[in-house]
């Protein structure tokens, strides 16, 4: 089972006493504000969790996997995530299935 926005809103409702509407809105806006900052070309740094960085990729040759036709992959900007030290240490200790 994966963690979803609904689970997070439920968690805020249980733990903070926000009503369901407020909890749902704040979770929605949390992700929307991060998207908006990245769209503006701004890095997002969430201490203790990690950084969302932007990288610019140059145009490179590509291929249509269906037809095998060569088409250039245009220059683009992509989002990458660099986990912070605290999150990395917590996750490193996870001893579950090797995936």
């Amino acid at each position, binding site marked *: 089972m994966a963690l979803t926005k609904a689970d997070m809103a439920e968690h805020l409702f249980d733990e*903070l006493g926000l009503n369901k509407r407020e909890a749902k809105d704040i979770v929605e806006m*949390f992700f929307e504000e991060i998207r908006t900052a990245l769209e503006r*070309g701004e890095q997002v740094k969430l201490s203790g969790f990690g950084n969302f960085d932007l990288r610019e990729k140059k145009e490179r040759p590509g291929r249509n996997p269906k037809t095998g036709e060569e088409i250039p992959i245009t220059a683009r900007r992509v989002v990458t995530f660099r986990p912070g030290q605290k999150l990395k240490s917590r996750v490193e200790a996870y001893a579950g*299935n090797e995936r």
Partner: protein
Amino acid sequence: MTKSELIDVLAAEQDHLPYKDVEEAVRKILERMSSALASGERIEIRGFGSFSLHYRPPRIGRNPKTGESVALAGKHVPHFKPGKELRDRVNQAFQRERAAQLDVDHDDEASAPPLQVAVSS
């Protein structure tokens, strides 16, 4: 944008909520996400992206100072895959910036490569 700037923006938008509650909500969201990953649970946020764990097998490392070999255990690392909406919004904004830049170059009568906006993923 930092965590405290994010809290400021959210507090300004949710002005019926005390600042303290917004601050606490952001802290709780991040803590819930971290604890999910620490227990091997995935996170799926539609339109934003998904977080999962990737496994790094054990390997022989080297102490860079002494050159000595050290056995490193296998471990999990957090991995983020951006969702379609996030990818598209970030890249479309970038293409608009490039187009604007090319216009400026054109006005300067500098030669610029044609802009291609074909998106393949």
